[in-house]
């Protein structure tokens, strides 16, 4: 693939995170360049999700700092991070079960909807206009993800694969510059995985979105990502282009040698 | 779809409203708001039974009032105001001409409604004290006494015990009251008396329904008042007596209002309540003639409402008296508006405003000794403030004082002032004497 990778937009420095006594992350550092697809891989319990949670402010690391577009932060609220154009999807789906596909994705536009209670209550003029504008954007995403047929269905009723798409759609609706994907292909069958890969690549080069994605199996990830970070037991054991990482001793041990 | 359902429901409702309205033209209909369920049912039930039995008696013994048969219908309020309002609206439509709400809260809510509907309210011994002033409260009848007269009489009695009201100076009197309008009514009067006699008044509220009174009685114990006035209703009374026992406060020094001195209040306290005193507007026991008649004409015919042995209990008799006065009001009204006719609300009001039951009339009704003579007027809706104190001896109530009258000098101005304030808020004008003729 030929696309120009820009400068570093996200830098993670010496992040350490612990719950009580349990160390989830120890002194992790890596960076993410503009427009690249950056994968974080590692066996289950390697601390991948915790890493994402640190990046978008759900967890507050005890040590280290995250630098986003030169703005260094420690202890930022998820909203503040979101306002800086970071979106994410969730490993075990965190969709809004009670709401329709459309509404779920619409929530992604909330940051951009400003009309107050009063106008909302009247639902005329500005409020209505705003609603339709945003709706238009969302509809584009729905088309992009090929889920038009399910617009009005409550997400609860959708098959798992489609729910994953809605989750992605909700994140895309935020028009993020940095997109964090937490195991987007977990528990999918082959076709679903291929679809998901296609979407991720399309997002990456159509919207130029920078993507950080997590997977526990190396498989597909290696083909689509530009650079890979490998975590094991909360420590970074490898970082670099897919083939380097493939050759990395520790990585092989972590994966193959996990048994003996 | 929705519409269909709505219409159906509507039709149904209409049906019930109608089907229930079966009060025949030739019957004087008495709506009975009662509470036989809920927290206050032990007190509400005998009261309701008394009312019902008296109606049955009049039909069975005298064949009605000058030939007009009496009919009635009960509606369960459960002592809840909104339910009471619903009952009122329901029974109003069936030719009701007088109501006894049987609850202070409901009385307040209905007080605003009756002037439009032209139906008098009998609130014998409860309701708004100021409503004794018929000039403003044209439709309320707190016959035989209000909480102000009660408080006044209690202080008189305590004064007498001390050997003169002046002896009350420096004495401590605690008011343990149901934390509601009912319980607060007496306070202005007590404060008035406090100013006059210089006793100190300790106010101890008890949250309804009054199942938890420990701290109230610990306060009593620590304040060591010379007397405790108990202003409770329902479970609060018996609980108060038990807590008094548990904190060792002498029951002899406790004086209840007439709603705190009936069998249900002391029954399961038994010996523990021995010596406890309370006001009573009427006798208890089965000796009076009217009670005998009820046993003879109603209960022995198997028509009785409640258990036979509860006939003549304090609250039963009170219910009976209330009903009797209502019936007499109708009778009085018939004398003016035509014997053997069914009286309207307005006509019954005239009857209530012109009650003149002297000893002779009372005797005829078999009420001798049960109540004192009572005569009302357009401006005095109370008619009498006579009340006695009775004392629980561990198994029954015995009168322990002579009849008292509330002190007009004190009450009159207070009632007038309060009534005027009310009139001001409601933008009402006082009734004129000619208005009284209707």
């Amino acid at each position, binding site marked *: 693939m030929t696309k120009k990778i820009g400068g570093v937009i996200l830098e993670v420095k010496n992040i350490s995170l612990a719950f009580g006594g349990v160390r989830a992350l120890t002194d992790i550092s890596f960076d993410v360049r503009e427009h690249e697809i950056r994968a974080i891989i590692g066996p289950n319990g390697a601390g991948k999700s915790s890493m994402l949670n640190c990046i978008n402010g759900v967890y507050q690391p005890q040590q280290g700092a995250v630098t986003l577009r030169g703005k260094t932060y420690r202890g930022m609220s998820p909203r503040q991070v979101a306002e800086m154009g970071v979106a994410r999807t969730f490993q075990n789906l965190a969709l809004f079960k009670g709401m329709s596909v459309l509404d779920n994705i619409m929530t992604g536009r909330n940051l951009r909807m400003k009309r107050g209670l009063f106008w909302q209550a009247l639902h005329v003029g500005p409020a209505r206009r705003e609603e339709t504008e945003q709706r238009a954007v969302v509809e584009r995403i729905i088309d992009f993800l090929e889920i038009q047929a399910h617009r009005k269905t409550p997400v609860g009723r959708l098959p798992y694969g489609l729910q994953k798409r809605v989750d992605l759609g909700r994140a895309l609706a935020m028009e993020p510059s940095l997109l964090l994907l937490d195991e987007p292909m977990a528990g999918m069958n082959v076709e679903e995985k291929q679809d998901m890969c296609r979407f991720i690549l399309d997002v990456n080069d159509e919207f130029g979105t920078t993507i950080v994605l997590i997977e526990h199996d190396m498989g597909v990830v290696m083909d689509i990502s530009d650079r890979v970070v490998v975590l094991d037991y909360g420590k970074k054991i490898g970082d670099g282009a897919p083939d380097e990482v493939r050759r990395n001793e520790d990585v092989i041990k972590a994966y193959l040698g996990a048994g003996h | 779809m929705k519409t269909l359902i709505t219409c159906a429901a509507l039709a149904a409702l209409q049906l019930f409203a109608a089907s229930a309205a079966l009060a025949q033209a030739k019957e004087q209909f008495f709506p009975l708001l009662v509470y036989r369920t809920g927290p206050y049912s032990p007190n509400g*039930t005998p009261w309701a039974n008394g009312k019902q039995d008296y109606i049955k008696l009049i039909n069975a013994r005298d064949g009605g009032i000058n030939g007009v048969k009496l009919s009635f219908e009960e509606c369960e309020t459960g002592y809840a105001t909104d339910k009471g309002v619903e009952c009122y609206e329901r029974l109003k439509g069936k030719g009701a001409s007088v109501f006894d709400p049987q609850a202070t809260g409901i009385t307040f809510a209905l007080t605003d409604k009756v002037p439009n509907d032209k139906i008098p309210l009998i609130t014998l011994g409860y309701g708004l004290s100021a409503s004794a002033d018929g000039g403003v409260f044209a439709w309320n009848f707190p016959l035989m006494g209000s909480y102000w007269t009660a408080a006044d009489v209690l202080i008189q009695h305590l004064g007498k015990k001390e050997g003169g009201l002046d002896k009350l100076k420096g004495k401590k009197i605690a008011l343990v009251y149901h934390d509601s309008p009912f319980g607060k009514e007496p306070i202005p009067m007590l404060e008035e008396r406090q100013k006059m006699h210089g006793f100190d008044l300790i106010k101890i509220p008890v*949250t309804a329904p009054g199942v*938890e009174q420990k*701290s109230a009685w610990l306060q009593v114990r620590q304040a060591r008042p010379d007397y405790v006035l108990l202003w409770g209703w329902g479970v609060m009374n018996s609980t108060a007596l038990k807590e008094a026992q548990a904190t*060792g406060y002498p029951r002899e020094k406790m004086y209840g209002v007439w709603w705190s001195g009936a069998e*249900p209040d002391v029954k*399961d306290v038994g010996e523990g309540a021995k010596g406890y005193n309370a006001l009573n507007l009427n006798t208890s026991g089965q000796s009076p003639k009217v009670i005998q008649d009820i046993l003879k004409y109603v209960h022995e015919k198997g028509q009785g409402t409640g258990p036979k042995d509860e006939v003549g209990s304090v609250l039963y008799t009170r219910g009976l008296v209330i009903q009797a006065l209502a019936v007499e009001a109708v009778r009085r009204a018939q004398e003016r508006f035509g014997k053997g006719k069914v009286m309207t609300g307005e006509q019954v009001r005239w009857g209530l405003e012109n009650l003149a039951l002297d000893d002779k009339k009372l005797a005829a009704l078999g009420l001798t000794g049960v109540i004192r003579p009572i005569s009302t007027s357009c401006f005095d809706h109370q008619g009498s403030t006579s009340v006695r104190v009775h004392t629980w001896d561990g198994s029954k109530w015995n009168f322990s004082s002579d009849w008292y009258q509330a002190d007009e000098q004190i009450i009159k101005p207070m009632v007038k002032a309060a009534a005027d304030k009310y009139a001001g808020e409601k933008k009402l004008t006082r009734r004129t004497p000619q208005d009284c003729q209707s």
Partner: protein
Amino acid sequence: MGPFLETLVGGLMSGMLYSLIALGFVLIFKASGVFNFAQGAMVLFAALAMARFAEWLPKLTGMDSKVLINVLAFVGALAVMVIVAWLVERLALSRLVNQEGVTLLMATLGIAYLLEGAGQMLFGNDIYKIDIGLPKDPMFLFEQTFEGGILVSKEDLYAALIAAALVAGLSLFFQKTATGRALRAVADDHQAAQSIGIPLSRIWVIVWSVAGIVALVAGMIWGSKLGVQFSLSLVALKALPVVILGGLTSVPGAIVGGLLIGVGEKLSEAYLGPMLGGGIEYWFGYVLVLVVLLVRPQGLFGEKIIDRV
């Protein structure tokens, strides 16, 4: 000093009585995740049953030994509560498995109405008496140290003792017996319970029966204090803050919570009440809970709630 101690003791006593009712809530919530709104109604129902049995027995059999009558009445009422538990499971809960909390709460409300109606219809709606011979008169301690001494209500003291005994009994039951351990297992997770080989339905019947027994004891004690009548169903309201303060799932929590709230109420009433015009114990318990929850959202002894992504 005297008054203070007196109030303190009084508070502890009422606190124990609150705990007694709170216990019923906790047991059921622990084992079936149901916030049992009907607990108050169960107290009323059980008390009515016992009071009436105690009244009817002599009439029917002419026996006169008060102890025997009370014992038999208690057993009778107990049987009734077990039947109630069984019916509740059969007719309602078994058809509402794995519904959300609110739905179940709502169902228990329906059950509450049923019990209140049925109880008063079967056993009457007057005041009835439970006389288990609790002494009514107070005793005074340290009369030489404080003038007037420190008043302790014997009735409450015995009541508190009974309550304590019940709690002890229950914890033994939970620690030592197989069923008890099974119940604890269910509390932790329902699948696990089934894997032990006890059908959930039976577990629930047992739990509700136990709660029924707790209700019966509570009803007996409160009944002999207040007289058995509708208002008994309202004392449950006093237990709500206790349950929450202690943490919905903790038996010791219910006890400590009860004592805290009992003492807090009484002291606040005695010392803040006069300033604020009295009657503040009415809300004090709840405000206390509110404050505590702000610090510990899961109550004093409740399990910590952690939400993961």
